[in-house]
């Protein structure tokens, strides 16, 4: 069996986190959820995360800063980041911060999984 893809979900809204964990696990991903963006980098390293699903607006913290932090952290800089936001026009900002892709909330599950697979495929 292939190595399971590990996804880190960073979202301050627990409802979203839980939903995504359930949904993505259903699609066969190994999912870690955190509401604290400050430990994201640490988690990526510890858990050997393959992809980060990062919310743009995390209470008090700007998701793009988290993304930029990842890109600046040489240990984890290559980690793919898929950013998401309820602000449907936030894509460019996220991409500018180093995100591989952006998806607006709410999204179609299929759209999400396609984008994830595409990023992972691109990386390989």
């Amino acid at each position, binding site marked *: 069996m292939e190595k399971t893809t590990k996804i880190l979900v960073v979202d301050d809204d627990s*409802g979203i986190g839980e939903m995504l964990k359930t949904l993505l696990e259903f699609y066969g991903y190994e999912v870690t959820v955190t509401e604290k963006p400050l430990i994201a980098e640490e988690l990526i390293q510890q858990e050997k995360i393959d992809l980060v699903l990062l919310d743009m607006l995390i209470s008090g913290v700007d998701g793009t800063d988290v993304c930029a932090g990842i890109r600046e952290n040489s240990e984890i800089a290559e980690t793919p980041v898929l950013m998401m936001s309820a602000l449907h026009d936030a*894509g460019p900002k996220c991409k500018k911060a180093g995100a591989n892709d952006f998806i607006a909330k709410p999204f179609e599950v299929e759209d999400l999984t396609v984008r994830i697979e595409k990023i992972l495929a691109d990386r390989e």
Partner: protein
Amino acid sequence: MVESDATDLSEKEEIILNKYASQLTQTIREPLLVLDKKLRVLSGTSNFYSSFKLEENSINGVSVFDLNEGQLNNPDFRSTLEEVLKTDEGINNKIIEIDFREKGKKQVSLNVSSIWSPVKKRLLLVSLKKLKGKNKISKKKLVFNQVFENILSKAPAAICALRGPDHIFELANENYIELIGNRDIIGKSVKEAVPEASGQGFIELLDKVYTTGEPYIGDETKIKLKVGENKFKRSYLNFVYQPIRNQQGEVDGIFAHVVDVTEQVEAREKAQKSQDVLSEVIDAVPAIIWITDNEGMSTFLNKKWYSYTGQNIEEAKGLGWLKPIHPEDVEDTKNAFLEAHSQQKDYSSSFRLLNKRGQYCWVLDKGSPKFNAAGEYEGMIGTVIDINDEKIKENLVREKDHRLQGIVQEATVATAIYTGEDMNIELANDAMIALWGKDKSVIGIPLYHALPELDGQPFLDILRNVLKTGEIYWGKEEKVDLMIDGEMHTGYYNFTYKPLRDKNGDIYGILNMAIDVTDSVKSKMLLKESEFHFRQMADLMPGMVSKTDAKGNDIYFNKNWLDFTGKSSASLREIGWIEYIHPEEKNTFIKEWENCIDTGCNLEMQLRLKNKEGKYIWHLSRCEAVKEDDGSVKMWIAANTEIDKIKEEEKRKEEFLKMVSHELKTPVTSIKGYVQLLLSLLKKQQEEAETSKLPLKPSLERINHQVTRLTRLISEILDLSRVRENQLELRNEEFSLNDLVAETIQDINYTNTQHKINLESEMQCNVLADRDRIGQVIINFVMNAIKYSPGSQNINVKITREDKNRVRVGVKDFGIGIGAENHKKIFNRFYRVGVKSEETYSGFGIGLYLAKEIIERHNGDIQLKSKLGEGSEFSFILNATQITS
């Protein structure tokens, strides 16, 4: 002595009278008495004395009637004398009887004549002649009578009587004897006594009178008489040779009455000679000389006049001399001359006089009245001299002057010339007189008389100074008080006082030119006042106000500007307020501002301005053009109102909306996720087991669809608010339009299972646009196509080339279609196609409105082709940056 007349006569007159009386008797040989008017004897001839045996001069002063104890106291004699005194008429040959005592009474012939003496006393000449033999008496009497007559009428004169054909001197008075040089002539013939007369034609004259009996009158006849040994005297004589006839009427003698007029003649000749000399002098003078009589009529003109004018004496007489005067000058000359003549005053006139060559030359004619010794006016005397050369020069100058004066007079600029210390108004044109508020009567009088209101104002002193120093004075917007229609008016004038110099460079006057600038000054004052108000207002205004000229150069900054920047007005002007604009807005502003200056359009823009602490503050900047009447820009007023707080609020509102949207979408995202998870589970179950009887799947699908709709509505609300506030920001990025369309269709296909969306691309193209917004438009078109074609399956999306640089994206459905009447309305905000099943087609009705806004903001076109019942095709056209087939 004449006692009786002593009271009437002065001593001198008495002497004259007595001398006269004795002269009378001395020249007469006959017995003759001279009596005064009281019939007293003044003188008597020696013959009288001898005839009456009286001693000479013993009877002087004695009454004639007392002579010889009353010998002549005869009634006839007395009555005759009294009659003569009374009538003043003489008595001839009256025969009276005189008692001669021892010789008895004898007849006497009496002649009495009344004469006036030089002292205006009446005298009587009385002759008494004894009558002898009849013939002799009568003959004698005749001769005597003739002689006597002539004495009476012609005395004192040289008188003689010649007898016989040989002209024997019978009688001659003393004057005569004196005339011929006191020669002894009585009893001698003329030839013998006056031999020199024969060579001068006198003897012949006498012969002629004697033979013809015709008297001869000689007038100023020249005669040479011997007055001494070889000594001759030339005399001029007026004489009468009167034939004397005897009783038979035959000529037997000649009475000669001679008046020596030598002195008069010589005097006249001398006068004539001197007149001739004078006349020659007059004719030789290089001027025309003329003389008139006391009627003003020309009586003399010297030769020069005639040679000059070619007139003859007759033509020039009276007023004939006016004839050769130029027609334009003749009337003035005539009037001037006649006026001088009538007032007996000096006369002067210059006129053009026609010379005989037919040319008019300028002459100066001057005359003076002439009075005689008694002070009576005798006429005018004068000269005419040629001044043509001078006059031509003068005329040139005058013409120039005249032209100048004409120009000045015509000029609209108020102009005046003052001359002399008194600043006499030599000239003032209508404009100047109007400026003064005076009339033409001011010309010729001193300025301070004409404009007494100048007293106390500085202008007279300035004028005097100009006259003294010769320096031009320029008055600029000077206040002048003038009395106009009895009221003082204050005006403002630009004027010059320019010294006028004659050809020697001496200042003789001042040229004053003035322009009334009252209106301009007053409006300037008003402007100043209004500018003051403007500044005051601008300073009090809460905003930052500045002013520029028409070209955008800063002129003024209000206090708030200075406070805001911490700069002085001068340094602000130097820097320019544009430098305070935030770099992000600066270029846009400059571009807009340049456009404003070119077009005169107003500008409104939000921008940030840097304050003195270096902090950028949001302002609403409005630049408005202040225009002239003709529409040209006079200046710009720029007002910058701080909108930082408003801007903050906007930001908050934006944040709020964002949060609303975010907050709304978060649960939706969860719901959606779960719904899809469940749907996936159901699908899996269906594949693995028998279909559940529960309508779980359709319910969840519906939930999912509704959540999608809800999400879009939330987004649209946000966009709408942005469009309304002009805050829809566009990003420009170049991207592949084909990719965008494909991705969008793919996204839609995730949720849409009913329709088949076909994509057809004619070519590949890139556009420079906001990718998300264009995607939004495509979603809108496709979603509408899906929404309004429930009965059909196909939706065709086409990317085609519009023209060289433009591409078209069209979305065609085969649904309900839109009537032509709604083609425009459909792009209006909140417009929804009015169909029955509203529920089905729910929405805010802002999708197309937003789509239109987005495309138009990209300088593109949005189009609709549709017919009711035949489906619709929405498309947009954008500029492409790259097109490849």
